[in-house]
């Protein structure tokens, strides 16, 4: 008994929604009847079958997945924004640590040699100071400073571009 007026009201409200903003009660009525009433539902989905069939013609129906290159480009942006972990820095991390460790060992060695051999008295024996440029192959770029020939120890600083 009540179904036909409800269907009419349902149709009127859905049609009216194209032209004016519905009240909360009217929207709630559409939602309720759309679920409860078979007739309202059928009317609501009048064009569903035709449109669904037509959409098979839409080239965006089957979206081509992005290529691995596309994803890589996208992920570069995500890494830059800090959303994904930076794999590059993870790989490169050991090298700076290794070179820093090598530099520290070298510095300790130099300081230890200075303390042990007393480089501070070098000016007193400045005549003994010898700078030797070894006969190295051309363009080798190696240079050796010799602190002396006594047995107190020798500090050699080798500068090399090799």
């Amino acid at each position, binding site marked *: 008994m009540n179904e036909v007026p409800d269907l009419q009201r349902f149709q009127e*409200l*859905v049609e009216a*929604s*194209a032209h004016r903003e*519905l009240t*909360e009660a*009217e*929207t*709630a*009525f*559409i*939602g*309720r009847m*759309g*679920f409860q009433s078979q007739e309202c*539902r059928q009317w*609501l*989905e*009048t*064009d*569903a*079958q*035709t*449109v*669904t*069939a*037509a*959409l*098979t*013609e*839409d*080239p*965006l*129906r*089957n*979206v*081509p*997945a*992005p290529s691995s290159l*596309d*994803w890589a*480009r*996208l992920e570069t*942006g*995500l890494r830059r*924004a*800090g*959303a*994904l*972990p930076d794999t590059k820095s993870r790989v490169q991390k050991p090298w700076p640590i290794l070179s820093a460790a090598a530099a520290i060992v070298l510095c300790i060695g130099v300081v230890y040699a200075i303390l042990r051999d007393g480089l501070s008295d070098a000016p007193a024996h400045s005549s003994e100071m010898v700078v030797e440029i070894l006969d190295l192959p051309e363009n080798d770029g190696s240079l050796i400073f010799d602190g002396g020939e006594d047995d107190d120890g020798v500090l050699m600083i080798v500068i090399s571009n090799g």
Partner: protein
Amino acid sequence: MDVEQDDEDRLLVRCHLSGDANGFEQLYRRHRERIFAVLVRMLRNREDALDATQEVFIKIHRGLDSFDPSGRFLTWAYRIATNHAIDTIRRRKVRKETPIVEEAVGADADLRTGRRANPEAGSQLERGEVATMIARAVDELGEAHRMVFTLHCYEGLSYGEIAAVLGIPVGTVMSRLYHARRKVRDALPPDWDPGGPSRSRGRSQ
């Protein structure tokens, strides 16, 4: 939509929030294709959709701490994607750009295979003509109608799910979908034959 997958999503969100960077990375890998798919259909442009996917995942990453674990992650992600798509469409209107999809349709090509789509359906019109009509009709839908239409007809979301994604009443989803469908239907010739029985895809509950 899968309850088990939803629980795994929530777990990954918790991992991320507890400081595990892999949590977000896994969420991204699970959902990136789905988010891309919904964006390409809303924006009707592949390149825009790729850029938008990146931006949406950055927004998801930044907003994960505001995700309510009592809800579904995918619904929340769809909401971010939809809002982003609406913003992009508005910006595009200002720039008065033409969706690139029309060029592809004009070339009569399926974007994935390079071939014409579904050679059996639609007996009276050339495939390319119908494709052009459909693409143009969807392009011309207003943003509110297009969002509802895309989520239902392409993504298969129910009325209730769309209401949750867009944060609007179910009644509004129903009326918008009705008008969107009618506009697309009206863009087709009256004598167009879909070429067979029901091929309904979208769910209705």
